[in-house]
């Protein structure tokens, strides 16, 4: 019975660890990243296919959080990703001036980064309101917002950036009620009359879809946001030369069209990129892609990766937190400070913790597992300590009095009696981690979060659910699995 259980457990881990090989990249491979919105995915995919056409191996790390993909580029874990000149000057170089490409490249030199020639369109920030509202209240410019009583739903990034809401509201002296939320949700909020305006990108296909119009930026507050390939300086000249073929190839209207194909035409990023590159005679063959609809092999891969991330983190959590809990029980003086420290760790927002991991672990599986591991420590540690601390003192006395050595007491008495409560801690950690692991997609670690992030970018509920439903099912199965395990362990009483 025990042997067969062990065999199943081993098989399970073998299945999970087949992932390890896949996560490593060879040195000749170029890593292309993207942020988590449609246009960035498309530009990244276009660059990827073009380079693949020239026989480069590409590791796609799409759908990352924007500050994370920049950190990854700085650290050298990402080679190329599509960025915007305005973002580089304002956010990364922290200047209010409108820098030219040369000035930007001069300043990027010390970071060992550079930008290539623009793709050809300016995707600046804009403030968008429903067309109907604009007509009814005669709102044409951003200045008109001043005396309105409108409510805004803006992205987190926009709400914090100096070239976003803080600067804009100062420049136009607007004092309005705004709420920060995810971009796709902001559009939904406007559709459902929960908000009146949002920040938008001027090439966003959603403007058309949601019947929004852009308010004129009369004071020319928003800087130019030319899309460019943002690269590591050390990339071979040959790679740069290939990417130069994309210079000035896409104007605003074309970009809106490409975005619309993804968001409303039901086309995959691969199809759109292939069609675009063929039309421009840059590649000859379409990249073979899966047909739309539910893609079982992707689902399987993502689920496998998701389980791998979660279980590796939990395994490490158990290896560290259970012995640590035992130590705290023996040296009670340290118990409070260490439990408080573990509690503090838990209060760090998941996405922030993932971002902190990048300087140490780069992007991909490692930082994701590290972050999930840190999140799993508290529930396991706290339960281990509490379980040991709550053992009936009579049993302790009996064990000592009958002549057991301290390690025998731990092995035969304390530990077996604590297992049900420790298991409850591991169960809590596992369920939390299955939820949190969906965020791993932001740092290119894959998993079911990939579908969720892509779905959010495309505002496509079907794709979101392809990630969210399996994640929920995994969480339920994990609950049931541990419930059975706890019952089995509890039976011993």
């Amino acid at each position, binding site marked *: 019975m025990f042997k067969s259980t062990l065999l199943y457990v081993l098989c399970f881990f073998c299945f999970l660890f087949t992932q390890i090989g896949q996560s490593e990249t060879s040195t000749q491979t170029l890593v292309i990243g993207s942020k988590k919105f449609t246009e960035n995915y498309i530009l990244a995919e276009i660059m990827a296919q073009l380079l693949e056409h020239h026989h480069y191996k590409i590791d796609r790390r799409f759908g990352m959080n924007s500050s994370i993909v920049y950190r990854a580029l700085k650290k050298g874990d990402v080679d190329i990703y599509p960025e915007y000149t305005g973002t580089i000057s304002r956010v990364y170089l922290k200047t209010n001036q409108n820098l030219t490409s040369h000035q930007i490249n001069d300043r990027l030199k010390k970071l060992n980064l550079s930008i290539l020639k623009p793709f050809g369109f300016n995707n600046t920030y804009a403030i968008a309101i429903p067309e109907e509202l604009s007509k009814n209240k005669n709102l044409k410019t951003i200045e008109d917002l001043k005396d309105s009583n409108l409510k805004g739903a803006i992205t987190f990034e926009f709400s914090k950036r100096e070239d976003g809401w803080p600067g804009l509201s100062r420049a136009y002296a607007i004092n309005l009620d705004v709420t920060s939320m995810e971009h796709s949700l902001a559009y939904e909020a406007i559709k459902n009359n929960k908000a009146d305006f949002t920040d938008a990108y001027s090439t966003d296909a959603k403007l058309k879809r949601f019947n929004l119009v852009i308010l004129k930026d009369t004071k020319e507050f928003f800087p130019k946001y030319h899309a460019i390939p943002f690269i590591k300086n050390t990339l071979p000249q040959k790679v740069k030369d290939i990417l130069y073929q994309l210079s000035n190839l896409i104007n605003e209207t074309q970009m809106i069209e490409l975005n619309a194909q993804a968001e409303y035409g039901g086309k995959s990023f691969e199809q759109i990129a292939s069609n675009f590159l063929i039309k421009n005679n840059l590649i000859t063959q379409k990249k073979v892609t899966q047909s739309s609809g539910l893609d079982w092999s992707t689902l399987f891969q993502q689920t496998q990766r998701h389980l791998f991330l979660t279980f590796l983190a939990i395994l490490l959590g158990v290896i560290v937190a259970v012995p640590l809990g035992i130590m705290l029980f023996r040296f009670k003086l340290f118990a409070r400070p260490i439990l408080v420290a573990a509690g503090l760790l838990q209060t760090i927002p998941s996405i922030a913790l993932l971002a902190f991991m990048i300087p140490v672990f780069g992007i991909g599986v490692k930082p994701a597992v590290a972050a999930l591991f840190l999140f799993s420590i508290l529930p396991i540690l706290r339960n281990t300590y509490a379980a040991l601390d709550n053992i009936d003192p*009579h*049993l302790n*006395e*009996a*064990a*000592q*009095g*009958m*002549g*057991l*050595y301290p390690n*025998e007491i731990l092995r*035969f*008495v304390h530990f*077996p*009696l604590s297992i049900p409560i420790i298991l409850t801690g591991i169960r809590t950690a596992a369920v939390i981690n299955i939820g949190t692991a969906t965020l791993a997609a932001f740092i290119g670690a894959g998993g079911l979060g990939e579908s969720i992030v892509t779905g959010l970018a495309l505002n496509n509920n079907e794709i979101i659910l392809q990630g969210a439903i399996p994640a929920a099912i995994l969480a339920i199965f994990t609950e049931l699995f541990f419930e059975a395990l706890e019952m089995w362990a509890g039976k*011993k*009483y």
Partner: protein
Amino acid sequence: MISFQGVHKSFGSKVVLKDLCFELEPEKIYSLLGESGSGKTTALRLMNRLLAAESGNIKIFGKPIDNIDPVSLRRKMGYAIQGSGLFPHMTIKENISLVAKQSGWSKNKINQRADELMEMVNLPPKQYLHLKPRQISGGQKQRVGFVRALFLKPKLVLMDEPFSALDPITREEVQDEFLSMQKKLKFTAMIVTHDLSEAFKLSDKVLMLNQGNLDQFDKPSEIINNPKTDYVKKLVSRFLKSREINYV
């Protein structure tokens, strides 16, 4: 067997045992008797080094106790506590044989000893050894507690209020069984109790503890007929009164 000489123990500023002196002979039953806070459990725990004395000498089997490794010392003694202290996750057999197994006893020897002792406390081994503690009654648990304490054939058994969690009828039964076991196995027993009738019924000699002082160390008949201090007098008269009430 065991001797205390000028043993002193305090917890913080509270003195628990003062200048304790006595000597125990082999194959006899002793009781440590006193009200709560009299230091009786502390005295017991000094005997198996669960506690250490501040000053004075404790000798066991002729050797100073400090020179004996605590764990091997405890394996030479039995230890039974109130409410049995059986481990809930182990079967009766695992409970009684754990230390024997850890001391390297063979399976055969363990099986034999388990059967022999279980028979002795009227718990047929085939019926009981595989059960978990929650499946047996309080009196049965206490008997199993004795079996566990006696498993390694100790010459000395320490017992901390072993009968106090039992109802009066069961208590009588278990006490009688304990006496018959002691007759067969010939061990020395030290029983901590606050119950005079129990102490007088079971013991050859009783140690009367009064706030850390040993007021009297005598046979039960001597204590009843010839109490040496006011404290002992008070306890004895209380005991005699309760017997009268019982008989009325």
